[in-house]
């Protein structure tokens, strides 16, 4: 259940962006890579508890990202399933992960605040 600490970090991140962008967030989009180890349902549950506790009015949306990698043998991007570092086409094990490990805030929507 490290989603509880991830949720706390998410709220901190939102507050940081709010301050930087002079905005009051009402909608936040979070991208969660398959390889990030974060369970979206658990994260969503933890976030809703914090929002209630802190009296915030923010809705969270999640974008799930597959793990993709560049296979030097096939010379193209491939999607990795079941958390495995092997190219499903040619079985190459020298892959460069290009996407799918991220845990980022991607977009924040809200009203701008002065000052």
């Amino acid at each position, binding site marked *: 259940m490290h989603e509880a600490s991830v949720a706390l*970090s998410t709220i901190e991140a939102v507050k940081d962006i709010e301050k930087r962008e002079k*905005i009051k967030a009402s909608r936040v989009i979070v991208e969660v890579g398959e390889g990030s*180890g974060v369970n979206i349902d658990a994260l969503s549950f933890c976030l809703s508890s914090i929002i209630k506790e802190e009296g915030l009015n923010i809705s969270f949306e999640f974008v799930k990202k597959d793990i993709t990698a560049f296979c030097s043998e096939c010379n193209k991007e491939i999607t990795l399933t079941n*958390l*495995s570092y092997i190219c499903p086409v040619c079985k190459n094990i020298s892959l460069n992960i290009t996407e799918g490990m991220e*845990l*980022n*805030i991607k*977009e*924040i929507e809200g009203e701008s605040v002065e000052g």
Partner: protein
Amino acid sequence: MKVKVVYPILKGNDEIAKQLKERFDEHGVLVFNLISSPGAGKTTFLENLIKNLSRFYRIGVIVGDIEDTVDAERLSKPGVLSVQLNTKGACHLDAGMIREGLSFFDLSKLDVLIIENVGNLVCPSDFYLGEDFKLVILSVTEGDDKPKKYPGTFFKADCVLINKTDLIPYTNFSLEKAKNDILSINPKVRIFEIQATKEETLFDFVRFLEEKIRWKKKKV
């Protein structure tokens, strides 16, 4: 108004971890993050590893547990400084906790720093602590199905120790299946078979670690 950003949620942790890594590198201290489920044999393994290593290297240990100090007491040996961190409910160590724990150490007087994470095969692997490598222990009594059930941790491991191999005859654990499953998740991982209670079964891993210690020293 919409603002597009790329703001890593664990930025706070990763920034601290990066600073820790710089401090470890500056002093040439090799750091590994030891992860396993509870009861896999982390502390017993470390007791015997330290017995082997402390003759030649200066070792520090940071032990993470939810409560209690029994592990740090077990690992406090002459010449080995061991610090217990209690996470008070948290299922993993984060970089901020390591930074606090480091206040007890003089990095210029260490060759190796071992971080024994909270016993948990899920969460610890998501928090980078500035380590050089992640070491995962899988024990025979947990069952050979665990790598496929907890792929995240094995995906991020640099090295896996299969522990309690002397118990294989009393279980339905297949060493071949366990190894194949680990390698199917992470084909480049190094696997060692050990019996943590028997010091002599650790020699291959000790040699591997000594190479790493020398490599880290050379980088300074």
